[in-house]
């Protein structure tokens, strides 16, 4: 995928030309170089360029002189001047003579990348409609958002309806049902698809970290902040911000969030500069926000601001028809990754998978298949490869060990609760009715670790 816009780099230093040539070639631009103004002018007369990066100070024709001459040939060419020595009068003259911008080397790579991108976008004759060439008759889904059940078809229909708009979406569903995948599906079917979707797990971050994560911080804003850092709202400019576990946000952050969503403006922590960002908001929660509003734990005005369009993702036990297709998707994924020749699931194992109630939903199914592929021998997953058996009433008993001690059962149960809550320590501790410190101690005692999903 490439832009194939053309760039001419003009600098008398070979190493600068080569570095920039290399840099822009990786971005798939068509790049040429010239070591002085005269050579650049000859090249420009032969074939027009969309953008020129020109050193101010060169033997013979200076950067400013070259700027004037190329503007006579093509007034639309974008020229960015580079200099080692910044001076205000020269900068003003350059801009008055038609330079797009003026930068001092060494240039921050992020600044240069955005400068060139913005410059070419302004010049570009492409329209937004031209970028969205596809006529979306069928929505594009992330590969792993799978389902053929009626319930999932309803979800896909809702995605299809809301994606092309800029409407704020609230995705609701139990942990492990694929809320983030639904958010991605909305994003990649929207006009913002060429920009990032930026996820933030609000439940996993302490309030002080969340503020910096969302809004960024300036260099020196706090001890250890050696570099400036852009926040997630800034990174989501022109794209989408996905706020997962939005119900866990503190009252103070709820006020900040409401203000940012309404004004699309904010300051970085420790900064005075007002940052503007054009983002779409998608949030997700597995909590009953309405109850939190009644209890005074979630602001009503923020609730109504976020709950404009709601999509409920069903738990896996309500769409067991999708279990086989999901199981085979994960089997294919992990068998390929681990280079194992396991191609099928035995009828008994599939029957078990379909009947199990999946409290951890699709994430739990994925973990179960991964584990089965690890331990499986032969070309089929069997019941004994699965990490659990179902008793007559659908409860879970592990077949991993014969250890029936209290400690073993406690370890197993704590692990189950942590996985069901995506390792959200606060929520898990609340469910287990112990405090966070006790939970951390038990995690350490049993050597529990979050599985990669």
């Amino acid at each position: 995928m490439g832009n194939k816009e053309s760039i001419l780099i003009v600098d008398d230093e070979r190493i600068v030309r080569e570095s920039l040539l290399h840099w822009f070639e990786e971005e798939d631009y068509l790049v040429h170089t010239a070591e002085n103004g005269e050579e650049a002018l000859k090249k420009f007369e032969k074939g027009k360029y969309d953008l020129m990066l020109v050193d101010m100070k060169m033997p013979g024709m200076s950067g400013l002189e070259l700027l004037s001459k190329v503007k006579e040939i093509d007034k639309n060419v974008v020229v960015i001047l580079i200099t080692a020595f910044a001076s205000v009068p020269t900068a003003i003259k350059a801009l008055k003579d038609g330079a797009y911008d003026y930068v001092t080397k060494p240039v921050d790579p992020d600044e240069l990348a955005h400068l060139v991108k913005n410059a070419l976008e302004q010049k570009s004759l492409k329209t937004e409609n031209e970028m969205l060439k596809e006529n979306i008759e069928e929505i594009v889904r992330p590969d792993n958002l799978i389902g053929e059940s009626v319930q999932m078809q309803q979800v896909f229909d809702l995605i299809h309806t809301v994606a092309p708009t800029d409407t704020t979406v609230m995705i609701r569903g139990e942990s492990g049902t694929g809320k983030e995948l639904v958010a991605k599906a909305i994003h990649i079917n929207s006009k913002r698809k060429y920009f990032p979707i930026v996820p933030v797990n609000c439940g996993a971050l302490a309030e002080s970290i969340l503020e910096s994560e969302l809004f960024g911080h300036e260099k020196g804003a706090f001890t250890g902040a050696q570099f400036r850092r852009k926040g997630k709202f800034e990174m989501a400019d022109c794209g989408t911000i996905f706020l997962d576990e939005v119900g866990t946000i503190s009252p103070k952050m709820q006020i900040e969030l409401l203000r940012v969503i309404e004004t699309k403006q904010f300051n970085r922590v420790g900064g005075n500069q007002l940052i503007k960002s054009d983002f779409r908001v998608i949030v997700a929660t597995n909590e009953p926000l309405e109850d939190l509003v009644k209890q005074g734990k979630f602001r009503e005005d923020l609730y109504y601001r976020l709950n404009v369009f709601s999509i409920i993702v069903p738990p896996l036990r309500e769409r067991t028809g999708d279990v086989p297709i999901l199981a085979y998707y994960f089997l294919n994924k992990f068998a390929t990754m681990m280079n194992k020749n396991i191609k099928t699931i035995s009828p008994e194992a599939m029957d078990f998978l379909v009947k199990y109630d999946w409290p951890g939903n699709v994430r739990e199914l994925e973990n179960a298949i991964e584990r089965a592929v690890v331990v499986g021998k032969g070309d089929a997953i069997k019941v004994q490869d699965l990490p659990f058996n179902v008793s007559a009433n659908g409860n879970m008993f592990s077949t991993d060990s014969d250890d029936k001690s209290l400690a073993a059962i406690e370890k197993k149960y704590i692990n189950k609760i942590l996985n069901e809550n995506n390792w959200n320590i606060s929520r898990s501790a609340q469910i287990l009715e112990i405090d966070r410190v006790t939970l951390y101690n038990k995690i350490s005692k049993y050597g529990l670790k979050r599985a990669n999903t």
Partner: protein
Amino acid sequence: MKNEIYIAPLKFGNLSILKEIENRLKKLLWERINFIQLGLDIESAYSEARAQYFSTQIIADASKLTGEINGKIILITEADLFVPVLTFVFGEAQLNGKHAIVSVCRLHEEFYSGTGNDELLIKRTIKEILHELGHCYGLKHCSNWDCVMHSSAAIEEVDIKGEFYCRHCRKLVVST
């Protein structure tokens, strides 16, 4: 990917991180990942004025030592890297070539938030290794943010881009 891949630490002291990177790359790339010691002193690439190391020169110096090796060679260092016109680079690669270099210097979370995070460091390093390796296989930057080949000129962009090649880039890599 048909070639063997060699990881060559240069001025890299954190062995536990290196081991974890090796383990994860082996899982991701299904190929033999080999660690080699080139015995290259990178001090000749040091710029006192910049207090940084010139990445292009390190690659050029490494090339003189790797003639016998068939495969892709990723140099990994804790030194801060630069090319003359930019304030820093996370890495550099020979497009459709044999060598690339990745620096973990600016991938450390403690420079940004004040708190170290080894897991984040490893994830970022893996991404940058895959990114530069992709360039060695001839891949240019991908416009898909879910792809590890998306350009990333700042740490925030490293964090939001994908962790592996998208379907399109993966096809191009596998066909080489």
